[in-house]
């Protein structure tokens, strides 16, 4: 069975822990300076989902802040993406939603997961549980993680990959009318 390659993007505010989540998951070859220069750092990770070997190419995009917006052109050709927010910083959720809106405008609907990071700092969270439940009710796929302890990290990549594989491409439909 051949390996299936998929491009995945990490989106979110500056400082929410996107790079740390990727670093927790993979071992890459590019240094962090790419993020600040080119605005993206790419790592890869192979994992097995069901009976399929999938090679994820993780595009870690530079975080958004008041001065610069995420380069949504890097999303082109992605199979799915993570919206990462910082549980201790409610504003990051607002930013994530605005990034999501722009992403949908640029590249259309595709599998997306909302990652609420920094579960190790639970006591200082500004985003409340009812709020997360409401988001889930709205249809968001939500995962709580900690890049520090590793909680939920493996799971988030597996879940999104499953969603991507489940979503059949039009080309695949064509072969099974």
């Amino acid at each position, binding site marked *: 069975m*051949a*390996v*299936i*390659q*998929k*491009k995945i993007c990490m989106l979110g505010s500056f400082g929410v822990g996107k790079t740390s989540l990727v670093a927790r998951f993979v071992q*890459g*070859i*590019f240094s962090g300076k*790419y993020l600040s220069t*080119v*605005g*993206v750092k*790419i*790592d*890869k990770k192979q994992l097995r989902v069901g009976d399929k070997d*999938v*090679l994820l*190419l993780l*595009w870690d995009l530079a975080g958004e802040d008041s001065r610069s917006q995420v*380069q949504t*052109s*890097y999303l*082109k*050709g*992605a*199979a799915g993406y993570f919206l990462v927010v910082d549980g201790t910083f409610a504003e990051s959720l607002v930013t994530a939603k605005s990034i999501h809106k722009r992403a949908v405008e640029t590249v259309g609907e595709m599998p997306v997961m909302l990652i609420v990071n920094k579960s190790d700092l639970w006591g200082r969270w500004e985003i409340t549980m009812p709020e997360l439940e409401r988001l889930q009710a709205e249809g968001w796929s939500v995962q709580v993680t900690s890049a520090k302890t590793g909680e939920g990290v493996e799971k988030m990549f597996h879940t999104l990959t499953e969603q991507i594989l489940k979503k059949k*491409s*039009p*080309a*695949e*439909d*064509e072969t099974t*009318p």
Partner: protein
Amino acid sequence: MGSTPADLKRDSQYDRDRDELAELRALLLGQQIVELQALQQRLDDPNVRAEEISQILGKAVALSIKRDSGLQRSFYPVVEQALKVSIAKNPAIIATSLAPIIGEAVRKAVAGAFRTMVETINFTLERSLSWESMKWRFEALSTGKSFGEIALLRSLRYKVQQVFLIQRQTGLVLQYVAAPGEGISEAELASSMLTAIGDFVSDAFTAKQSQELGVVQTDDFTLWVHHGPEATLAATILGTPPPELKNVLARENELIHKEFAGAFARFNGDSSIFDGTRPHLQNCLLGQTARPQKQSWWWLVALAAVILAAVALEFFVYRHNRHWNEYLTRLHSEPGIVITGWKKSWSHYDIAGLRDPLAPDPVKLAADYGIDPVRVTGHFEPYQSLDRRFAVQRAFDTEKQALEQLLILFQVNSSGLMPDQSVRLDWIEEHLDKLQQAANALGRKIHIKLYGRADQTGAESKNAALSKERAEHVLAALLARGIPADLLSVVALGTNEPIRHGSEAYQLEVNRSVSLKVESQQSGDR
């Protein structure tokens, strides 16, 4: 055939039944019948149906496209036909619509072609006169291949290390080949990063999305990228690649697009469907190792030889000039030689001037300065130098010559002087004194031999004695005049070495004589 009464009765019964059925139907299905009639009308009336379909057509097409591409396939011949008709009817409409796109595409193509042309011209100029290119031209002639093809194969200036086939949109690597001994294990990451950098360059530095990264260059590493509609072909190259390589990349990428059009549409991340592209990628693995070191070594040797030759030549010219200048200086300082002009060609010299006969031969002097006298031609007019050394020498020579030409004559068969010969002895005294002075100035020591002679008449034994007597007579006379004895000696020649041969009276007379022979040598040479 007419109707019977029974028939009529049956008919009226039938009509009655029918009316009742219609009534029953109206009672039971009244509303539905109206609706059915309306429906019937909708189906029958093409205007109504068109009106209705127009309302749902858009949505139906959208749904169909979403489900599969069957509709596109069905429409494709229609659209093609429609385009044909439209262009035949009024080409201006399509032309106007396409103009903005075509303009852009043409601009890009022309710019690309110009860039390639300039690079080709540069490269051609650079190599057109080299020995290598001559060999390549010969090979092209003998094999019937184009010169460009041979250059591409034989060029030692570059090596394609790796070739990537990358899906444009996702940056995923579809296929990857590397030259033996080259390559990296992270082709997927390199491919994605290249795409990201391409996006970055496009976003950050160019106003138009359609402008794309074509070349990445460092000192000895080049990345050439050819963009197709679906996939990008990227080659990493060591050294300086020839412009023709760009054509190879373009050609292979176009072939891949042609042969794998279906695979691009089907691609879902499984790159094994692109395994068939490997031969195309391998066609791009051109070139050999970078120009071998040996080559530059030969250049160094050649350069060193040229420098050495130049230095040697410079040295010889310098030495040559130095010798010539020293020789000229010597001639200028040499008494009795005056240089009025000279001409020097590559291997020959002409010198003109004046030369005192007493001065050394200027041409022969050249040998003292490492110049072959054969290569020197002298044009010297004789003159008399006023230099003191020459004046003294000349005085010495004059006195010597005068003294040696003088004869003291004697009477027949006697050692008695002819009349008036004592005047000659006085003259000798005077001129010997001058000769002595000149000899002293020249640092020479002189000695005078008095040769006594007799004429051929009479007995030989008598003649010998007579000649001796005559010489001694002169010796005695000179000693009497105060000339030092050690300066003089006598030689009796008898009839040997006569002044004149013959037996005439005037010939015999000069042989009855004494003559002087001046001998000289440098002081201390004895």
